[in-house]
């Protein structure tokens, strides 16, 4: 009963989505050397011939190739990601037909803040490719690859749920894990690890009580009130001042 007082927050007609404040960290260019001698490097991720084919077909759309631990990462322009995927899937000598995974990364830089990576396999040619696109904060939309690979459907929904990247042409862009009533994107770097109090109200803890706005009040810094929701039996050890 006293819990409710603690959890009760000023009631508003409509809770406004409050933008989270944060500061960018300064970054310096990272250039990890490609270690040829990585003990876990696999032959499947070395794909010079695929990169050549992509450059031949798309030219400047492929703007960078990185290599680490024997894995080639191909950076492409985000507007062309669907065409690149379709090319990889349909060209006979490539036949990247199995979509393994895709996901987003918050790089937390001032420009081109987000990144999407696509992990696609060619089961016939025993090859694995990683495509990457960079996304600026001002324009969070990326062409969806779900029309090309149906398996990308849920993975893209997850990226939307966690980072707020939107996918153009996605058949069903709903949140994956969080309920639709949730207004934040938890995998963004500025989202606090302990969550935002009041962002997901839970049912009242007593029949007449208020909604539980923050189940982890103590973790969010609110001081415990002196009174308890239950009455401790009096004994030599109970502190009398604790009981009202």
């Amino acid at each position, binding site marked *: 009963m006293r819990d409710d007082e603690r959890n009760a927050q000023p009631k508003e007609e409509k809770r406004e989505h409050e933008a989270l404040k944060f500061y960018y960290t300064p970054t310096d260019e*990272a250039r990890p050397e490609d270690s040829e001698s990585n003990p876990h490097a696999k032959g499947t991720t070395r794909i010079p011939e695929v990169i050549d084919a992509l450059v031949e077909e798309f030219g400047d759309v492929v703007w960078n190739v990185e290599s680490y631990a024997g*894995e080639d990462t191909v950076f492409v322009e985000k507007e062309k990601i669907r065409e690149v995927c379709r090319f990889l899937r349909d060209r006979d000598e490539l036949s990247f037909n199995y*979509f393994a995974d895709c996901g987003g*990364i918050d790089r937390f830089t001032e420009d081109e803040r987000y990144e999407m990576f696509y*992990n696609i396999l060619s089961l016939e040619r025993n090859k694995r490719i990683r495509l990457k696109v960079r996304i600026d904060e001002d324009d969070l939309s990326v062409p969806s690859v779900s029309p090309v690979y149906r398996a990308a459907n849920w993975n893209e929904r997850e990226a939307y749920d966690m980072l707020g990247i939107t996918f153009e042409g996605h058949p069903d862009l*709903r949140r994956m894990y*969080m309920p639709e*009533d949730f207004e934040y994107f938890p995998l963004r770097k500025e989202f606090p690890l302990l969550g935002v109090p009041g962002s997901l109200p839970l049912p009242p803890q007593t029949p007449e009580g208020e909604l539980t706005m923050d189940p982890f009040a103590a973790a969010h810094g609110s001081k415990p009130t002196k009174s308890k929701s239950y009455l401790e039996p009096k004994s030599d050890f109970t502190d009398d001042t604790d009981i009202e």
Partner: protein
Amino acid sequence: MATAPQFPGLDFGDKFRFWPKHNEKIYERLEAKHAWIEEKRAAQGDGGVPATEWSEEDPLENEMILNMGPQHPATHGVLRCVVKLDGETIEKAVLDIGYLHRGIEKLAESKTYQEFMPYTDRMDYLSPYSNNVAWCLAVEKLAGIEIPERAAWIRMIMCELARISSHCLWLGVGLMDAGAVSGFLWTFQQREDIYSIFDEVAGARFTVSHARIGGVASDLTPRSFELIRAFCDSFREELASWQKFLNRNRIWIERNKDVGRITKEEAIELGMTGPNLRGSGVEYDVRRFEPYLKYDEVDFTIPIRDEGDCLARYFLRLEEMEQSIRIIEQCLDRMPEGPIRADDAKQAYPSKDEVYYSMEGMIHDFMYTDVGTQAPKGANAYHAVESPKGELGFYLTSDGTGRPFRVRINAPSFTNLQGMEYIMEGSLVADTVVIIGSIDPVMGEADK
């Protein structure tokens, strides 16, 4: 569109409805979804169940929306299936997951690489060891750490035991779903033996956390060798007795045959993985595709079935357990003597002897706990293993500190559930229980 059900004593009035927007969106999606049923029937070439005619009297012949879960004994966790029924046939299905979402990808960003290990136990909690190994291998690839040979063999034995243990649970629970409760007790007896082995090796029965970055925590004791050998011998017989019981069991076969069928093309298109993909005739196993540990040095076959129905997946998983025993026996025979962790204080924990009896050892232990492995800045790497459920991969990005900058988990149950949504459409509502059992999703992993 759907009104909230009114239960006596649970009426919060206007104050509270359980995440109203969320439910509305799910029902909207269910309405908007394309019904594959007709195309699917045409493609599979069988008449299937004819669409029922509209009848006012019989509720079973009407269209109806049914919510299964999230609390449902047959959903193997907190999976919610919202299905639109046409009579007894599922016309459209929408799965709602996230009821076990703990945000471990976010949590990992504030933990050192070693600290994150216990969280991986709780992803696919039916085979914790595979997840430990998957995580360790990904970190080792990111930081370029080589593990000693003996550690690789130990990891392989334990991974295969974890596979057997996971498949045992699948079989037991699957049998129980189909009505045979005694099967559950038999498979759990075998799981119990595997728990005893884990107890002897790792000191924990269930959430083992035994692998370490750069090796494993402790060497196998002579008694654990005995236990593993004894298990291999007894399990072969046990497996044979299960096959004798089930392979020609009329109820089991009729319950599984032609149920939840998925073709080769569909399985690839939907990104199914693990036994569900191989059950449809696709030859994809990470142990062959990109061999890790010592899988390229042992002799084993990868079972494939073409039918793509629940029965095919049953035969395939039983065969996989047999192959696992084969791998374990080879590992036991070929395991060399030697160290079990990399001998570098920046890459792995020092041994307890060093920690207790030398100053450097203690400092190294402290530093490794505090800072841990550091991968080069900007490095990123993906490493996948074949977990019992399929391809389990971690994609890691490093910012040069002892903590990962971003962890991306490619969870097999997640991808399999996506395919299951499609498999369920067109099947009978009574078969969903069997289908869920045969796809074998674990919500701890799918929900991250």
